[in-house]
Structure formats: structure tokens, C-alpha cells
């Protein structure tokens, strides 16, 4: 089992899967870093985005990679409205209430999808879905390689937005010191909404990257969310770099644990790692020291 014939492809697979985890975690970590809320609705929003990507192809004939151009602004808007008009007002700024609101949202979104589209699993059968990049030692599915590349680009773009734009600086200001930011004239409610919107936009892109190789039904978001939380904590809450590197790391750990312990027990690797990181380095790999 230690033979490179298995090890190398497993690590490569882990990196490819981890990239998508990283993208999903990016949104979550931003939302946590700035709003300090654990967004329980993240999984349901991912599911909604995947349905959107699916129907974009089924009804409009849009290839998922093109659909991303349409869905990203759409979900950006959706996220903005959700935070500005639902979560923010209903939560009254109390952590536990915001938690329940996002929980309620998750239930609403998932079941609205169930009611509207039914329970069956849908998949896109795209021509290029089965193409592989033949590296000799490993076959890498083309859509996953593309996903890897796109995630790196998005992470870089996000980092640039946060560092160089005014909005980005405002976001970082609010994350660091909300009161001070408010006093210096920043519209905190607006910044919160923008941040949440960025998070859901990331989900829209992740959905378009996943749909060629995965399937969609009203419950799939849940499968990714727990892992995404692990990545967020591992990378450090609020850190874009952390989310990306954390994602890749978790992907590889998951892959190797699955290889050695079996897919069922292997899942334990992610959570044990999570616990160890929290016990010994709670701020995560790249997070701010608490």
C-alpha cells in the first residue's frame, strides 16, 4: 500500500478534491472572519447553487464554466440580500440568534428545493466529463484539474480584492475592529452584506466546478459543509490563504486516511486532525493569535 503507484495518485486526488473544499471554505472563512457567525446555511446555499448550475445547462444550454459568469453575480446578489434583509435584522446581533436564523434558512432552502424539484438525483452528462489527463502514474479527470486551476485564480482574486480595493480594506477593518470601523464612517451593515455576498459568490463558482463530476439533489450540500468547517478552523478563521492551504491539506489527509483506514473510518482523520489543531494551535495555521 505504500507503493508510489497508489500513493502518488492518492495525493494528487486529494489535492484536486481539496481545492474545491478550499473554495467552499473561502466563503465560510470570510463570513466567519468578518461577521463572526458560523453560517449553518452554507451547505444549503451550495445545494441551491448546484441546482442553478444544473438548470442553467438543462434549460439554457449553458456549459457550467460559462454558467459561472452568470451565477456568480446572481448569488452575490442573493447573499447580499440574505444578510442585509434576513440574517442581520432577525439576528439582532446576538450570536445564538444568528445561529438559529442560519439554521432556519438551511431548513427553508433545502426543503424549498425538495418541494420545487423533487428528491431525485440529477446529473449532467457532459462530453468532457470523462476525459482524463494521463500523467502515466495517474489519471486525473479534466474537470477536476480545471477546478484546481480556477480555485487558485479565485483565491488570488479574492486576496487582491481584500488587499487593494477600498471595499476590501473596509472589510478587513470591520473584521479587526468593528466599533472603530463604524466610528470612522464605514457602513458596517453594508460591509457585512458584501462579505456574505462574497461568500455565496464563492459557492456559486464551486457549484459550477463540481457539477461536471458530481450530482445534485436537495441534500448534497450537507456532505461538504462539515469538511468546510474543518478547513476554516485549520486554516485560521478569516484567512484566505489559510482556507486555500487548509483545503488542500484536508483533501490530502482525507485521501490518505481513506486509503489506509478505509473510506468509512478514514473520515475520522479529518476530525481528529481538526481536534488536534484546535487543542494545540487554536488560531489555526494562518489565523491571528487569539
Amino acid at each position, binding site marked *: 500500500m505504500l*507503493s508510489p*503507484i*497508489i500513493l502518488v*495518485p*492518492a495525493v494528487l*486526488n486529494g489535492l484536486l*478534491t481539496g481545492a474545491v473544499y478550499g473554495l467552499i471554505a473561502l466563503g465560510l472563512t470570510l463570513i466567519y472572519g468578518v461577521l463572526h457567525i458560523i453560517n449553518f446555511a452554507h451547505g444549503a446555499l451550495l445545494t441551491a447553487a448546484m441546482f442553478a448550475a444544473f438548470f442553467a445547462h438543462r434549460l439554457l444550454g449553458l456549459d457550467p464554466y460559462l454558467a459561472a459568469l452568470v451565477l456568480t453575480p446572481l448569488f452575490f446578489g442573493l447573499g447580499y440580500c440574505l444578510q442585509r434583509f434576513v440574517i442581520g435584522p432577525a439576528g439582532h446581533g446576538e450570536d445564538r440568534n444568528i445561529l438559529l436564523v442560519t439554521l432556519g434558512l438551511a431548513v427553508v432552502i433545502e*426543503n424549498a428545493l*425538495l*418541494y420545487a*424539484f*423533487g*428528491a*431525485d*438525483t440529477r*446529473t449532467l*452528462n457532459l462530453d468532457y*466529463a*470523462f476525459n*482524463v489527463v494521463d500523467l502515466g502514474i495517474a*489519471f486525473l*479527470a479534466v474537470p477536476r484539474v480545471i477546478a484546481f486551476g480556477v480555485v487558485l485564480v479565485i483565491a488570488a482574486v479574492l486576496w487582491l480584492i481584500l488587499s487593494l480595493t477600498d471595499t476590501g480594506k473596509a472589510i478587513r477593518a470591520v473584521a479587526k475592529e468593528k466599533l472603530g470601523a463604524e466610528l470612522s464612517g464605514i457602513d458596517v451593515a453594508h460591509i457585512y452584506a458584501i462579505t456574505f455576498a462574497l461568500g455565496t459568490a464563492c459557492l456559486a463558482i464551486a457549484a459550477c466546478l463540481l457539477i461536471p*463530476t*458530481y*450530482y445534485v*439533489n*436537495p*441534500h*448534497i450540500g450537507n*456532505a*461538504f459543509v462539515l*469538511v468546510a468547517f474543518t478547513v476554516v478552523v485549520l486554516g485560521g478563521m478569516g484567512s484566505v490563504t489559510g482556507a486555500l492551504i487548509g483545503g488542500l491539506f484536508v483533501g490530502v489527509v482525507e*485521501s490518505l486516511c*481513506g*486509503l489506509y483506514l*478505509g*473510506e*468509512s*473510518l478514514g*473520515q475520522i482523520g479529518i476530525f481528529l486532525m481538526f481536534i488536534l489543531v484546535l487543542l494545540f494551535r487554536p488560531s489555526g495555521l494562518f489565523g491571528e493569535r487569539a
Partner: protein
Amino acid sequence: MSHWSAQVTRRKLVQTTAVGAAAAATGLINAPALLRAQGSPVKLGVLHPVSGALSYSGQQGRLGATIAIEEITAAGGIKALGGAKIEAVLGDAQSTPEGGNAEVEKMNSAGVAAIVGGYASSICLTASQTAARYDLPYVVDVGVADNIVTRGLKNTFRFGPGFGVIAKTALDNLVTINDQAGNPAKTVMIVHEDSLFGSGLAKLLNAQLPERGFQVLETIPHPTPTRDFNNVVLKIRAQNPDLVIPANYYNEYVLLARTMQQQRVRPKGIYSVLGGAASSYKFVKEFPEAAQYIMDCNHWFDPRNPKALALKKKIEDRGEFYTYEVFMNYSCVLLVADALERAGSAERAKIISALESSTFSGHVMPYGQTKFVNGQNQGAAPVNTQVLGNDIQVIFPQTVATAQPVFPMPRA
């Protein structure tokens, strides 16, 4: 996808909610009279997980049951009860045992004569137990756990096969198919989902395969849901078994098959047992390439039975897929209707007796006449299917076969 209309009637209020039941119990609302007048409808509980993780299977099950009820009503109802119609009392088990349990209580309070369904073993176990408190006949539609019928509950009947029979049949048939092809398969890898159905099956297979001359290279459990099968397929490729035996639900099966196709892994045969997608028209339609030559040992209708084929057409005309939940539930409802006819009464005890002595053959499964011993239908067994030429054919047993097995799989 049809939408059931949300009608709020007084009856529904009492039937479907604890609030309503409380009101009825305290006399605030008049509960429906428990004495049934001649010719008035017989209520049948139809319990399925139509929301939650198992929603697709639950909805398919409900579909099969409700179509059977419609047909019975259209054919004049239960003759022995003066043409009484069957009235469905639908319940959503919400994919949890507590949900199923609560629905059984409501159905009992609404005065159902019997309950059909459950789907998942865990739901069937708790629901049938609750029904037993009221001597309410409970017919399990799919749930395969052996202990469903070994608890000594007089009210519980299972029309389809349990694990033990399925595993044994699958193995017997595999040996026969392998022998007929000249024994090309010696080594096996099992890939199974890690909850009740997959684990139970894997355990039995692991015990019995070596006795039949097969070598199990590895048994790989995986959770439901599993996000990625690349590692599993890597292991399959590395160990190169002659046969891969999957036992999992639809979504995971699809991912596994697609990943195998992607990674160019092609064993001599894929012999699924209770495969989620291996004998699914949906899978064949959506992934014809990945589905070719896959064999399954699963619940399947009798392909010689015109009723089964008529039902297939009806379901497909509605734009739905003809899945096992549909024809199993359809058959279970017909079974109950037959029991009602023979009992000549909607009394629960009489229905239980009627089921115990049932010799029903008006169903659509290849089981022959029903015969229940300790609640288990003795004739129930899975059959072997194979995807050949974009259609699912029955390859074994010979008595119901529609095609010859193609084994080993031809090289791509």
C-alpha cells in the same frame, strides 16, 4: 413531479397532527366514527420517508402504493366489503425512526386497517413495533434487515426477501453464472455502504464467498454520502480483482461506476448485490456507457407478467422511473387488498389471519404464491439482472430470464 394539494379538512386535521388528535381526544372536534358502515372506505396507512435523506425512495414507494390503491378503487373496490374503496392515509416518516413512529400512532388513531411501507430497515423496525401495540397489521415493503421478522411480532409481514435470502441467492447465482462461463472469476473485492444494509450484506458475503471458492481481496466500506471514489478505484486498479461486488445506494453507485470508467478500470465483471443503480432504468438512461454489462442481484418484477409490464408503462408514461420501490409497494398493497377480500372484514385481527394464510399470486413479483412463515414470505427472492444493449434484462433464474448472461465483460 406531481404536487399533492394542501387541503385542510377536518378529517385531515385529526389524522395528520397530534394537535388534531388531542382536540379529537378531548371532544373538541368530532373524531371520525370508528365503526365502519358497510360500503364505507377502508383506510390503509401508506408510510414512507418522503422528505429527508431517503426522499427519492420514499416518494417512489408512495407512488407505487397510491397507484395500486387507485386501480383497486377503479376496479370496484373490495367486493367482499360491498365495493368499499381503499382510502390512503399518507404518512411522511421524514427518514427517521421517530418520524415513522409518530406517523404510525396517527394512522392508528385515524383507524387504519393496516399499514404498508417504511422502506428503511430502521424505520420498519420501530414502526412495526409500534403497530404491534395495536395489533395493527404492518406489511414491510422493502426493509431487508433479517431481524424485522425474527422478533416474534404477529402483526409484521414482509413480502420481499431479507438479507439472508438475498446474500445466499446472490452467491448461488454467482457460482452458477461463473461455472457456466468456465470459472473466469476467482478474486473479488467488495465495496459497500457502511450502514445497516451494506454492512450486513458484506458480513454475510465475507463469510460465504470463501466457502464457494472465491478469494476476497478486500472489503471496502464507505459512508453515505461519499464525496469521492478515486481512492477506492485506485485500490481496485492496484489489486485487479476479477469481480467487483458493490452494495450501495444510487448516488454512490453512480459515482463509483463513473469513476471506474474515468480511471479505465474494467474488471471481468461487476456483480452488484442490492445495487443502488445497477438495475435502475434511470442509471441506464443517463449513463449508458458506464452501465453496460453490469449485473445485479436485486428486487425485480416478473418480466413475463403482463400486469407488471402494464404498470411499467403507466409509470413511464407519467415521466417517472420504474424502480423497485414502485413495484414492491404496488404488490404489497395488492396483497393487503387480497387479505381484505378473503377476510371479508376490515378488522385488524382478521386481516392478520388472512395474511398468515395468504396464497396470493396477483402481485407483479416473480415469487409465486405468497406463503408467510413467521411473517416472512417464503417465496421471496431476488433475481439477477444485467444491463444489455441499453436495457435491463433478467439473466437468472432461467424460469424468468429474458436473456443470457454476458460474462466476463467484453474488453472495451
